[in-house]
């Protein structure tokens, strides 16, 4: 009996400890991937964003802080992309078309940021915008001014872009919603434009 | 003239664990037979339980019978193998405990959760019930299967351990040195050879089964993790087919061990015997595609393999064992009693049951026959007349009070009732199959109903006979543990 207890107690505590670790490591068995974790984390705790200098398709310079007081939808792209960014661009187009026109610009702006600033100059950004029908004002295409600031920007959003051995990148594509307080509040799948729009409408 | 010079090893009584297995077998077997009868009565339109109830019964009947065939086969294998290699009683009992837990989970899933997707849990049915049963019900069913599988895995690992300890590896235990080299007459006894074969194929089947069950459980809750349905079907059939085949390879040990005691002739592990078991070890793992011949989506090579090996596998063990049994019995002067009779009948049942499978294993025939009652006809022949006869033969043998004990009239009558009932019952299946009566249908067309009625009467006869068998076994339980000679002495042999 005593021997059994001596064997059983450590076994039980290890099992409990192990389960607790797994629970902690997966946010209560809900987020098994880094992507799911980042989405849950911003929902629970909106994240402040760095004021990285950006440059848009017309060479205008700005920071995310300039959007304070407005909602901002952000996607991360690179203009040479010919796979997932097509869906991203299309999703953004849908987003653009399905929010009230009056709110556009006043209450809400769209921003596509390139994580490939070496290649994507204003000219490429403009071309990308034209491809998806961005107006260049309410929906701008931008890149970080200094390549050195890119990692901080991506890290804040939790975006990872890795070379795909074909000259392009693989990246965790999503649509990001930044609140009026300049904090990252929500991250959605690129094929979930409708719920994303619903979330925006609620905050307009 | 017959020689009866062989003096078999002394008879060991069964351990309590083995008796617990056999009592569980008797109880579950009877219950499942009643479930089967209810299904036939429903098809015969003599009772009305509805399609839902029919499929619940079919699920329980299938799962229960396959499981109990495993438990009964394991009891026989364990009892005899334990005389050659020291096995663990704890593991034996542990397997039974896990089996009972698994059965409870399955019963809960079916009768509380209304799961009725058949024992084969074929993907994607368990997860796509169209609202007839919940995800939880399907999960409990598959979880129950996992628990039962875990028990058998432990049992097989213990058997592997004992065989390796006693014989130094599977290769030696299968008699490969004697098979591929000079036969020095030192090959392991048939019981060890058979147990080794069963252990090898069951270990593989159980690992495959556990893998597909884990995959299906994830798919159940996260359907976006898609399973290739053909892969799932192949894995499920591999697991299920190997497992149910292994049960008869376990149970046939009763024939190898008991018939020689009645005839005083040894069952030798000669080259032919060893070759047949080695061949079947391989082949039994590759015949499952003969159940998939209609699935044209499968790669052609797989279907051809199923066809060819399905044909080939009928030969080795069955022919060698059937021939061996005939040779052992022929002019031996054997005196028939319930034990020897049932065991001899089982050889006929196994052989006869393989024939419909042989025919159905032909691709052309399979296209028209496979989804008919021909297939239940096949496996009921070989399980009812083959495996179950072996199990009852073993029970009678164990329960025999003394060598000279005579069987009461009612037992002998029950034997013939069982024989006639089983033959009638399976022939009703087979004939209905020939008439293209679809299988797995709760409701039958009016012109099919007569076969169902005939089958129901025969089923009643089987159950009546089984009641006698079981009652006698329970009545003789006190003798089952005793170490005394049970087999009668053949005519013309001198009593030692």
């Amino acid at each position, binding site marked *: 009996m005593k021997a059994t207890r001596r*064997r059983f107690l450590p*076994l039980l505590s290890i099992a409990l400890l192990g389960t607790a670790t*797994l629970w902690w490591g997966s946010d209560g068995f809900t987020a098994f*991937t880094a992507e799911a974790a980042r989405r849950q984390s911003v929902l629970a705790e909106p994240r402040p964003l760095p004021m990285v200098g950006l440059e848009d398709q017309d060479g205008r310079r700005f920071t995310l802080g300039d959007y304070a007081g407005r909602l901002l939808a952000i996607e991360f792209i690179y203009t040479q992309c010919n796979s997932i960014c097509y869906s991203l661009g299309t999703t953004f187009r849908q987003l653009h078309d399905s929010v009230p026109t009056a709110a556009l610009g006043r209450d809400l702006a769209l921003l596509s940021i390139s994580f490939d600033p070496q290649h994507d100059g204003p000219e490429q950004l403009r071309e990308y915008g034209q491809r998806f029908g961005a107006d260049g004002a309410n929906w701008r295409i931008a890149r970080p001014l200094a390549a050195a600031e890119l990692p901080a920007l991506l890290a804040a959003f939790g975006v990872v872009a890795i070379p795909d051995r074909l000259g392009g990148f693989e990246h965790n594509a999503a649509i990001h919603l930044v609140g009026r307080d300049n904090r990252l509040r929500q991250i959605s799948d690129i094929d979930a434009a409708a719920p994303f729009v619903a979330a925006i409408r609620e905050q307009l | 003239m017959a020689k009866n010079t062989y003096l078999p090893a002394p008879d060991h009584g069964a351990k309590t664990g083995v008796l617990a297995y056999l009592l569980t077998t008797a109880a579950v077997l009877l219950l499942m037979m009643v479930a089967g009868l209810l299904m036939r009565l429903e098809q015969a339109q003599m009772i009305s339980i509805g399609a839902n109830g029919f499929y619940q019964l079919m699920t329980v009947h299938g799962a229960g019978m396959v499981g109990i065939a495993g438990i009964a086969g394991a009891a026989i294998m364990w009892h005899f193998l334990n005389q050659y290699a020291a096995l663990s009683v704890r593991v034996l009992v542990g397997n039974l405990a896990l089996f009972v837990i698994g059965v409870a989970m399955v019963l809960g899933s079916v009768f509380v959760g209304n799961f009725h997707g058949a024992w084969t849990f074929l993907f994607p049915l368990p997860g796509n019930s169209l609202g007839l049963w919940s995800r939880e019900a399907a999960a409990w069913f598959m979880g129950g299967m996992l628990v039962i599988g875990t028990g058998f895995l432990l049992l097989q690992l213990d058997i592997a351990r004992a065989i390796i300890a006693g014989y130094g590896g*599977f290769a030696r235990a299968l008699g490969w040195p004697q098979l591929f080299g000079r036969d020095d007459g030192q090959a392991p006894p048939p019981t060890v050879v058979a147990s080794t074969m069963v252990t090898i194929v069951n270990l593989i089947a159980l690992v495959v089964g556990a893998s597909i069950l884990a995959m299906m459980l994830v798919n159940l809750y996260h359907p976006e993790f898609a399973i290739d349905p053909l892969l799932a079907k192949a894995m499920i059939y591999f697991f299920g087919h190997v497992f149910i085949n292994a049960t008869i390879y376990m149970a046939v040990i009763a024939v190898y061990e008991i018939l020689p005691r009645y005839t005083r002739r040894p069952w030798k592990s000669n080259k032919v015997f060893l070759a047949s078991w080695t061949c079947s070890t391989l082949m039994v793992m590759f015949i499952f595609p003969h159940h998939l011949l209609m699935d044209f989506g499968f790669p052609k090579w797989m279907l051809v393999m199923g066809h060819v090996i399905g044909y080939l596998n009928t030969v080795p063990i069955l022919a060698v064992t059937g021939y061996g049994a005939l040779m052992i019995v022929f002019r031996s002067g054997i005196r028939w009693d319930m034990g020897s009779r049932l065991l001899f009948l089982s050889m006929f049942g196994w052989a006869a049951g393989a024939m419909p499978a042989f025919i159905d294993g032909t691709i052309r025939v399979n296209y028209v026959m496979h989804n008919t009652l021909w297939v239940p006809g096949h496996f009921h022949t070989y399980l009812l007349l083959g495996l179950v006869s072996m199990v009852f033969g073993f029970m009678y043998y164990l329960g025999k009070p003394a060598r000279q004990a005579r069987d009461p009239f009612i037992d002998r009558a029950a034997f013939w009732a069982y024989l006639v009932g089983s033959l009638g019952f399976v022939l009703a299946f087979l004939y209905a199959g020939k008439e293209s009566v679809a299988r797995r249908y709760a409701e039958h067309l009016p012109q099919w109903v007569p076969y169902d009625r005939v089958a129901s009467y025969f089923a009643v006869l089987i159950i009546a006979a089984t009641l006698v068998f079981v009652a006698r076994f329970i009545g003789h339980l006190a003798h089952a543990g005793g170490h005394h000679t049970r087999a009668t002495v053949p005519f013309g042999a001198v009593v030692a």
Partner: protein
Amino acid sequence: MKQPRRSGRHALGAGAAYLLLTLPPVRHWLEASMASHMLVQMPLLVALGMVAVRLLPAGRRRRLRNGFGGPLACLTAATFASAYWMLPRALDAAIGEPLAEFAKFVSLPLLVGLPLALAWESFGLIGRGFVWTNLISMQVFLGWLYVAAPLRVCNNYLVDDQLRVGWLLITLAGLLFAGWLGALFRGAPASRTEAPMYKTA
């Protein structure tokens, strides 16, 4: 007298191998692809923990095992620790966050390899077989998860890489199974002399 010196050399070798694995260039090289990260670096770290156990004297091993709470407790610890590192986000974290990387380098040898080796030596064929068979079916299962996942599970790895790891896991499981069965066919002499976990009847 020869024994301690040899085991001393082995300890040195194991330590050197561990240090080699921690070197940034080696680390980056092995972590560059999911396959080498999961199927080379991490197993090597586990193996080093197991080697460390073999270098300890028998008495220390026994005390260590009892410290964990017996062989089953050891096995449980190894199972949970390895399960944690099977979380795709743990893999991602190990690349991006130094603390997670450090935790990986410490926990894989100490909480997976070490207790596994401690449990292993006190298991008979049943215990070992149970570990093997479960490991193999879990590997097939995990491989399938990676192949069937509708998404890229690690942000740091290409989706092709993930597919390759899935198929490698399945292939590896098949090979391990064949190897294990092969050993049972030959009847490894070690399994005969090992004391079984229970008393035979």
